[in-house]
């Protein structure tokens, strides 16, 4: 199979696990049991380089979201390893995993998922507050300026456009300087102009701040912004392309 060939050539993973910010080794995820069991991930081995913008592509049902959820410590795997900075997340307790997400991972979702009762600023600072960490004011100000949110800080999500809300979500993900940001269809709810806007900002975060970003998308145009693209189908990696 072509996919396996390609992946053998590009990813001698087992020996170089530490070169990747995030990686999956023979990751299997089965939903349900018996006849109705679905293998959402069927032995996925893949790695994402640090300070790069990677995209996971595939049609719906390909397992791309499940892969992301396992790598981000949101979901448990049936077998295999989900590595963050070389450390296996599948063996951690729920509490430790929560702290890993809080301190080392950032999230951007399709539906923005801002808290409706908090202002933009409060939403951005939420992960830091949860961790009881003091915000780095200079970093915060820089982020807010880069993302063009300076005049929106006191607004609530209901007073902002989709593009603006997604930029707030991006700031929320970046503010903790996480090892990896996982973006799940970040442009799925946006018009084309806001989409381009958000994708440019994601790329800028990689280029200027050395941020690692892994984006799940089914949109070719969105994927074209990425440095590397992993294609999935039926729970397997079918192609891995480095830009």
């Amino acid at each position, binding site marked *: 199979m072509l996919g396996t060939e390609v992946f053998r050539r590009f990813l001698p993973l087992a020996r170089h696990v530490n070169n990747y910010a995030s990686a999956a080794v023979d990751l299997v995820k089965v939903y349900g049991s018996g006849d109705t069991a679905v293998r959402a991930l069927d032995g996925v081995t893949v790695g994402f380089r640090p300070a790069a913008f990677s995209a996971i592509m595939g049609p719906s049902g390909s397992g791309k979201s499940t892969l992301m*959820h396992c790598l*981000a410590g*949101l*979901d448990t795997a049936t077998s295999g390893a989900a590595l963050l900075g070389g450390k296996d997340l599948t063996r951690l307790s*729920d*509490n430790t995993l*929560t*702290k890993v*997400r*809080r*301190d080392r991972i950032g*999230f951007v*979702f399709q*539906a923005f*998922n801002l*808290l*409706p*009762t*908090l202002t933009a600023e409060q939403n951005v600072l*939420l*992960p830091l*507050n*949860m*961790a*009881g960490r003091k915000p780095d004011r200079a970093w915060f100000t820089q982020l807010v300026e880069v993302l063009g949110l300076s005049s929106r800080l006191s607004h609530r999500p*209901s007073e902002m456009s989709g593009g603006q809300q997604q930029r707030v979500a991006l700031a*929320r993900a970046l503010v903790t300087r996480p090892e990896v940001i996982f973006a799940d269809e970040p442009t799925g709810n946006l018009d084309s102009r806001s989409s381009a806007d958000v994708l440019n900002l994601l790329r800028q975060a990689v280029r200027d701040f050395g941020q690692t970003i892994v984006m799940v998308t089914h949109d070719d145009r969105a994927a074209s912004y990425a440095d590397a693209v992993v294609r999935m189908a039926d729970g397997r990696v079918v192609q891995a392309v480095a830009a």
Partner: protein
Amino acid sequence: MRRFLPVLSISIAAFFAYSTVLAKDITERSLAVKAAKLVEVFALLGAFVTVAMIVAALVSTSTFRIVFAQRMRELALLRAVGASRARLARGLIAEGALTGLLASVAGVALAVGAGQLVPLAGLVAPGFPLTPALIVVFGSFVLTTLAVLAPAWSAAKVSPLEALRTSAVQDTKSRIGGLRWVSGILMASGAGVLLVNVAVEGLASKRRPAGMTEDLLLRTTISGALAFGALITLGPALISPVLRLISVPLRRSTIGSLAVSGVGGAPRRAASVTAVVALGVSLIIATLTGANTLQGLGKAEMASAYPADLEITGPVDVPVLRAAGLTDVLPYRRAEITVTTANGQLTMNGTDLDMLKLRDLSDFQVDTGALRDMGPHKIILSTYTASRLGLAAGSQAEVNGVRMTVAATVFGGVPLGSALLHASDVDGEPVGVLANGAKERVPAGLEVESLTDRRLAQENWFTTLVAIAVGLLFLTMLIAVVGVGSTTALSVLERTRESGLLRAIGLTRKELGRLVTTEAGLYGIVGALIGLVIGIPYAWLAIISLGVEWPLQVPVVAVGVVVLVLAALTAGAGLLPARRAARVSPVAALHSIQ
């Protein structure tokens, strides 16, 4: 299960109502006669059942609102495929009324079941009074139907376009319409005007024409009802200032401030839940404060009616009594006196008892003047007698033709008669003594009466009555707590995505659970605070209306305990929803539509 949440409170109220009927049945069977005092108790019970019913109806209205709001998409879809507004509303009302009917039957059945357990406590088993059962079921059914009307109609107004929206319905509006403002302010000012009116009139008139007390009490009740109406109408606008006030200590922690914004984020919902809690709390606080005040008065009246352990009448030898081991032996002489003032003339019994030497002196409360000022040509009167004669400490009156000065006036009466004179103003031999000690120590042949026994009997009756009243009100509170629980449960369901996000970006299971319980507790605290602010003035107003000559005494400790217990209960009501919220995996939560 979710469909039955709105009528849970109705079930409890129906249970409560029919239990009262059964309790009455048991008492009548075991006593065979209807004691006069019991009639009063059951009248009181009836009043509490009414309050419980009102609370239950309010709780279910607000819960119906939430349940319908969650079905907005389904309803919008029905509208989109051609259901008319009226048809949709009819459907929702029918559904609400049906669940209400089931809930009331369940409540009555539960009460009957509980009644079967009564023989275990050694009492007579109750019968099954059919007519009251039907009345309770029908009453709760009607109440539920009324409660579902407004939520059903506003839910039916949903635009068909809502069906296409993906995000959950959010109730973030704290603004209330102009009409609501106007009617709320009208009610509030009506309540205020009546309050001032009752206070002024009640305080001014010392001698009341027949029916005035009832009239003042009626006005107090109307004013209270108006105040509560104003609270419900203006509630959403009041929530955020009250929250801001009490949330200061919570703001320091992330979970605290998230809880505050969660409660403040749905002001309408918060308003209706806290209004119900406030109603319960204000009634409990008013009862406690009223009881405490009456108890203070009662204590003084007791002290005046039963000033010592023993009263020995007839000619007595003080040294002999002391030798027998009795303490505080106080002989007194009696005199019939006529007091004349510009306001009129009263004839009464007076003694020369030296009040300062009484053991229970601290139970008395001096209104004007001081007991120490007593001396020759001076007189001490009860506040009641003094006000009838237009006297206060320092004013003068003719006593049996002699000019005397009032040294002090005492709330609740003076011992052994209506007035106390100085020893130098009374002639003759002592006619009796007051003494403390055991009855058995009194030498044989003397006429002695134990005042302690009589005092205890009286005090017990009062304490029991207060305990029953507060207990019943706590049952009412239970309905409010159930309201907090179901509101929290539904608001957790509605915000599943939000909890998913919080879990994803770093809130642990335990912290999420704490967040939900804090929100539930906040409903309780906000309600309790509003209840305090309303309850205490109305307790005072009720005391004034009753024409009780006694200052208001707020039982600070008891009130504090009520507020704390309530906060704990409501936070406890959040435990189940909290567990539920914490169990959901972040992935599942993030992908839920609601």
